[in-house]
């Protein structure tokens, strides 16, 4: 029993790392732009489809497929921000308008994918086949790859935000936009890139999970909801919180599957979300902006 539990926790960590990756993009946008991106799941979906087409139409290796997915998702993110969010930003109603406009984008993209690419689920092969033994457990190489990639990307991104010139500008804009502008920071450009980066992170997560979860127009709905839970657990706007929250959710889910059943795991997750909102709305690391 203990062994099964431990195995599930391990699975949970792998899953959790993906949740963290998806949620990090969401929390990045919230922290900088003070908005929730309802289309985040569809940017995830775009990443998945690009990988699929990269494999089937271009026949490239996973490495290039992933790079392509990230690149295109980044561009789509830039484009969406500039076209749809930028005009809304300094107008009244900014607390609600981005929710609605990104919801519209979400509906549009889901049904566009449905129309363009059909409702049949598409699969891509594992990047690395096979499993390995680790401390008495069988674990697929693909899952280890996921964990490694996520950890690397998260660390690299953290350092980028902390040390680089863009990172300084990003954090400055998030904390005081006007003061940042006085220092020469173009806030609108920062917002654009933030959206692009967030989309790229979501797309990366999709490419990593595509071999496991299959590609379809609605593949982004669940990650979006999970990302919501993660950012609330970790605190809206906190990058570290998203990482912690992701691992927490992943583990919680895996344990729910083994202790309850896979049908009820989402109810547990949502219930935890609501409890956290009730008792500790700022999450573990979030700011008091609720």
């Amino acid at each position, binding site marked *: 029993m203990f062994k099964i539990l431990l195995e599930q926790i391990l699975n949970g960590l792998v899953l959790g790392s993906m949740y963290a990756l998806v949620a990090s993009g969401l929390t990045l946008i919230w922290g900088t732009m003070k908005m929730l991106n309802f289309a985040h799941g569809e940017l995830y979906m775009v990443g998945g489809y690009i990988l699929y087409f990269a494999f089937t139409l271009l026949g490239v290796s996973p490495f290039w497929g992933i790079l392509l997915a990230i690149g295109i998702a980044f561009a789509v993110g830039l484009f969406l921000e500039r076209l749809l969010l930028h005009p809304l930003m300094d107008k009244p109603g900014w607390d609600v308008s981005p929710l609605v406009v990104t919801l519209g984008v979400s509906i549009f993209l889901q049904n566009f994918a449905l129309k363009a690419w059909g409702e049949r689920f598409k699969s891509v092969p594992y990047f690395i086949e096979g499993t390995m033994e680790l401390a008495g457990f069988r674990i697929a190489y693909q899952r280890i790859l996921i964990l490694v990639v996520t950890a690397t990307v998260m660390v690299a991104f953290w350092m980028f935000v902390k040390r680089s010139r863009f990172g*300084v500008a990003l954090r400055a804009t998030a*904390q005081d936009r*006007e003061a*940042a502008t*006085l*220092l*020469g920071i173009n806030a609108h450009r920062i917002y654009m890139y933030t959206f692009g980066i967030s989309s790229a992170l979501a797309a990366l997560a999709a490419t990593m999970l595509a071999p496991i979860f299959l590609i379809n127009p609605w593949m982004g709905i669940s990650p979006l909801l999970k990302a919501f839970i993660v950012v609330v657990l970790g605190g809206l706007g906190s990058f570290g919180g998203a990482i912690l929250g992701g691992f927490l959710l992943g583990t919680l889910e895996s344990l729910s599957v083994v202790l309850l059943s896979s049908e009820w795991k989402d109810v547990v997750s949502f219930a935890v979300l609501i409890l956290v909102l009730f008792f500790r709305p700022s999450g573990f690391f979030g700011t008091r902006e609720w």
Partner: protein
Amino acid sequence: MLEISNIDVFYGDAQALWNISLRVARGEIVSLLGGNGAGKSTTLRTISGILKPRRGEVSLSGVRLDRIPPHQIISHGLAHVPEGRRLFPNMTVMENLLAGTYLLSAWKGRMAAVEEMGKIFPVLKERRNQLAGTLSGGEQQMCAIARALVSRPRILLLDEPSLGLAPVIVERIFEVIQKINREGVTVLLVEQNAHIALQIAHRGYVIETGRVVLEGAADSLLDSKYVKQAYLGL
């Protein structure tokens, strides 16, 4: 060097400034005095581009500042320390200063520039890893000034640096302002504390309800009956 000519500035439909004209010559310290809500901050924010005048011009060495987007203004050598300091609260002192070197021209030499600030404001060097939100009022003001100076501006705009600070601290800050002026930085200073503002200034303007009502050499303003009654409490 800095010319503001006949600007009208509005907040939406409400007019805040009427036909304001100011001049700051190279190397001067000019003080802009006025009470609460007189329009001092509005004037500064118009100069630094956050607000745009509906009429009139703002020029720095011949370049029209009112025509360019606010984030580009610092690249022309104008730095603005805003009202309330507006440090980045969740970034350390060091990180705030680094943000000040965002300009590409300044970013390259950023460590040297930050070192320099450490010499001018030793307390900042001490507290360089402290979160800016946890600093005392005086330390915050110094940090804010340092953050503006670190890009080596030609002209510095200061919005009410003495606000909320103890007289001893205010004196020290104004000493620093005089020092950097002697090293070649032109200063436009906005203050409610007329006494100290006129002491270090070469010239001054008095603004009330969005209009300039008085201007002249700092000494003569200090002597003027009007200023004495209205602003010096005499």
